[in-house]
């Protein structure tokens, strides 16, 4: 291979697709195609095959004889001798076809051709057209002139087929290869050509789903949209030049669901579109994706141990949190004999090995059920033990106290029983002026009621404070009414409607006081109230009743008569 061809092969390594050929040149000959300017007359290129052996003639390397000993037939695709070259001439208005040899770049300029030969025009493109340079027996008007002169001079030329019209004067389209001819021998190599592709500029946009925050290491979706829906190729999603995901463009969209970020914080993600044979690549504006450390699940287990299984002796509570290194604290809770759950220890730090341990002497006798709960520090997730530890503690072995004897003394007062009335010698009860009862010719006084339910201040009051609460009996006796020397019996006076009244804040119950009327007072004591219930109490009782005189003989002399009533209680 000549140095010139070597250079061309290197240039061809940019691997542009051949436009207008449609036979897979780009895929099969990525590095063996010359790129030529795209012109309206450029039809395409072809490969050569050995018409004697039906073997491909390798572009760039096969050294071919000028006289056609290698039987170079133009074929549309490597290995496919039935792949035609060119098109139906009627589709481009062609009426003739020439096989030609021309300076490179002058393929469509017939006046610049070095040599040519008209050949048959096939309807569906040329099949296995013989491309032997020596057979181009018509000399052209280019320089050098004639195939023999080209053979002698050597150099770079184009060899191809030109579709023509206007009686073979006007070139419509050309299919050709580049050839390099060794001066003198005419040995030549060939190189298919392709039209330089004018690529369409693109723009690319990017979106992230979710759009805000993702976890580090967790897959999320990135979508790039290329401005032209016919664009193909790939998109690389990059952060700071590092690819975090990629996808193939389909219908102008490339989506990856497996992008992930390794660095926490704000990440600027861009979509880099590769471009394809028709479209230029482009890079999107950045989308910011915040990455936070991904939550790390933890598990917590708990154990409890006591050296002597004795209540109130030191017991060790231990929680183990995995993975090791999980940051956070542990709290221990427990219940004894199925009772209420109580906190045993809180905020116990977890060490680097994942252990949180605390010793306590607060566990009482019984069977303890103990759990541990880990409160994680982000990104560690909190967790709690799922299986409780149990710890049975026996009674504490402490001595019991010696009983202490102590005498307590008190004095219960004997108390007293006091009965009082509102009246005295100085302040007698005035029954008022007697009224004559004509029917009986006796004197009577109005009824005086004392200690009524509404005015108990005038009541007979019994205050019993005697220890032993013996109960009491209240009696009344009276002297006769006297006025100097005059008198009349007290028997005309009665104490009736006797009733007991409850005094607030006193245990003596009025209902327990049994009262009785004294219809006719005398010098002898007569009982009007007793208090001897089944269970006596102490306190104050008020007793009311009515006093009046009836039937006092009219023989009694006028004057103010006074009798002295004595109330006693025992």
């Amino acid at each position, binding site marked *: 291979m000549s140095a010139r061809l070597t250079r061309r092969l290197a240039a061809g390594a940019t691997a542009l697709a051949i436009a207008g050929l449609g036979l897979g040149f780009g895929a099969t000959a990525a590095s063996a195609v010359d790129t030529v300017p795209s012109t309206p007359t450029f039809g395409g290129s072809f490969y050569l095959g050995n018409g*004697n052996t039906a073997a491909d003639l390798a572009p760039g390397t096969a050294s071919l004889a000028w006289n056609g000993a290698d039987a170079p037939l133009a074929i549309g695709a490597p290995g496919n*001798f039935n792949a035609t070259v060119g098109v139906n001439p009627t589709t481009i208005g062609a009426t003739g076809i020439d096989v030609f040899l021309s300076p490179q770049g002058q393929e469509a300029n017939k006046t610049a051709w070095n040599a040519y030969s008209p050949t048959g025009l096939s309807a569906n493109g040329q099949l*296995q057209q*013989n491309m032997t340079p020596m057979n181009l027996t018509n000399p052209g008007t280019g320089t050098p002139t004639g195939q023999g002169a080209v053979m002698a001079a050597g150099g770079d030329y184009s060899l191809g087929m030109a579709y023509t019209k206007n009686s073979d004067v006007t070139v419509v389209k050309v299919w050709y290869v580049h050839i390099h001819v060794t001066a003198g021998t005419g040995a030549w190599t060939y190189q298919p050509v392709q039209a330089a592709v004018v690529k369409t500029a693109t723009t690319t946009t990017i979106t992230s789903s979710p759009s805000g925050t993702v976890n580090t290491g967790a897959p999320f979706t990135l979508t790039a949209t290329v401005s032209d829906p016919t664009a193909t190729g790939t998109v690389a999603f990059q952060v700071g030049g590092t690819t975090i995901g990629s996808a193939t463009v389909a219908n102008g969209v490339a989506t990856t669901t497996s992008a992930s970020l390794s660095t926490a914080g704000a990440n600027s993600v861009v979509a880099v579109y590769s471009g394809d044979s028709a479209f230029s690549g482009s890079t999107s504006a950045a989308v910011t994706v915040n990455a936070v450390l991904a939550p790390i699940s933890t598990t917590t287990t708990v154990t409890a141990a006591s050296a002597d299984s004795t209540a109130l002796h030191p017991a060790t509570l231990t929680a183990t949190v995995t993975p090791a290194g999980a940051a956070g604290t542990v709290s221990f809770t427990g219940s004894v004999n199925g009772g209420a759950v109580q906190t045993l220890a809180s905020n116990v730090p977890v060490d680097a090995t994942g252990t949180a341990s605390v010793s306590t002497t607060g566990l009482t006798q019984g069977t303890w059920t103990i759990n541990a709960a880990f409160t994680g520090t982000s990104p560690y997730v909190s967790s709690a033990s799922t299986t409780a530890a149990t710890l049975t503690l026996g009674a504490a072995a402490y001595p019991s106290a010696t009983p202490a004897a102590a005498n307590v003394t008190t004095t219960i007062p004997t108390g007293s029983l006091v009965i009082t009335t509102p009246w005295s010698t100085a302040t007698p009860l005035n029954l008022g002026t007697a009224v004559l009862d004509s029917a009986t010719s006796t004197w009577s006084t109005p009824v005086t009621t004392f200690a009524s339910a509404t005015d108990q201040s005038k009541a007979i009051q019994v205050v019993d404070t005697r220890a032993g609460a013996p109960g009491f009996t209240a009696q009344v006796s009276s002297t006769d009414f006297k006025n100097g020397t005059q008198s009349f019996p007290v028997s005309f006076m009665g104490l009736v409607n006797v009733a007991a009244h409850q005094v607030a804040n006193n245990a003596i119950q009025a209902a327990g006081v049994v009262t009785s009327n004294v219809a006719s007072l005398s010098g002898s004591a007569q009982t009007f109230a007793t208090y001897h219930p089944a269970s006596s109490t102490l306190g104050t009782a008020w007793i009311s009743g009515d006093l009046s005189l009836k039937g006092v003989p009219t023989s009694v002399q006028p004057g103010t008569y006074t009798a002295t009533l004595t109330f006693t209680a025992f």
Partner: protein
Amino acid sequence: MKVRKLASVGIATGLLAGLVAVATPASADPVTGGYAVVGSDTLQDSMNALVNGTSVTGANVRVAANGVNLGSFDAFGASKIRTKVSGGYFTRPGGSGAGISALLASISGNPLNGETLTGQVDIARSSSGPSVVNVNGALVFVPFARDAVAYAYQVPASDTACASALSSLTAAQLTALYNASSANTTLCSTPVTPRLPQSNSGTRKFFLKALGVTTVGAAVPATDNQPTGPQENAGGQISDYQIIPFSAASWIAQSNGAAPNTIAASPTLKLGAVNGQLAYSGTGSNLSPVAAAYSDTTFGRDTYLVVEYARVNSADPKYDPALATLVDPSKGTNSLVSFVTALAGQPGAVKAKFGFMAPSTTTPTRADS
């Protein structure tokens, strides 16, 4: 179209060849001033196609070894031809024997029919093998392709009994017909007359040799034994109740449209089955050669291109590498005698389209004539 004169070799002639190759099968006299090819009518159509360019296979095939174009001249046409710019007119060689004679005259410079042909003929088409084999001969016969010779017969459509009788004749029946002194009256109710192509026809020579007929019987019209006799392998040459030798390859090529169809105009002209073996299969315009007929050692025949040995002998001062390439079967697309048919772009594929099969050998034979 017949072109009597080639004024020059140039743009105009090249263009003409290119366009003609697509439109119709090659039928014209050559349009190039390169090597001149003359002789057999049987090989004429396939050779015309190869040297003028043809797309009969779908590919454009044109053999022009080392950049030298060829001119293949029909066996029949205008009486005079001119093959080289430098040469004069001479009588058109009509058939294999005339072609070989012209080649010899071209080599020797001896006048032929009072005309000097020196250097005017390069290749002779021959549908039959050498007459005089000589290991030191001036000529070399290079196998071109294999043909089979059968016979064509023409019977009115109404006479189905005769058509049936003539559709298959044994070699013995044919021999009897051509040895007979008068027309056959036993095959059909109407006497059947044997006919032959003109006296220079290779097909005629081969056919008679195959039948073992050394002296043509009087039943054959005397005019058939002249160079002006019937053109070989063509329709319109015989009448009803006549038979004539016919190249199976030519029959197939014409039926398929590869060669100009001269038989279509004679719908009652049929190809007979020698010894019951029809040389083609298929119908209409889709005929294929039948190997059993072509490989028959009596009626199958190799056909040849004949050149001067000195010009293809690399040790000889007259050595012409371009001509040597044309008749070297190993030269593939540059060779007229290659019979590789794998690709549409190969000359062998073209010859197959013209009803030929591969020759029985590729070994050339040196001969005097």
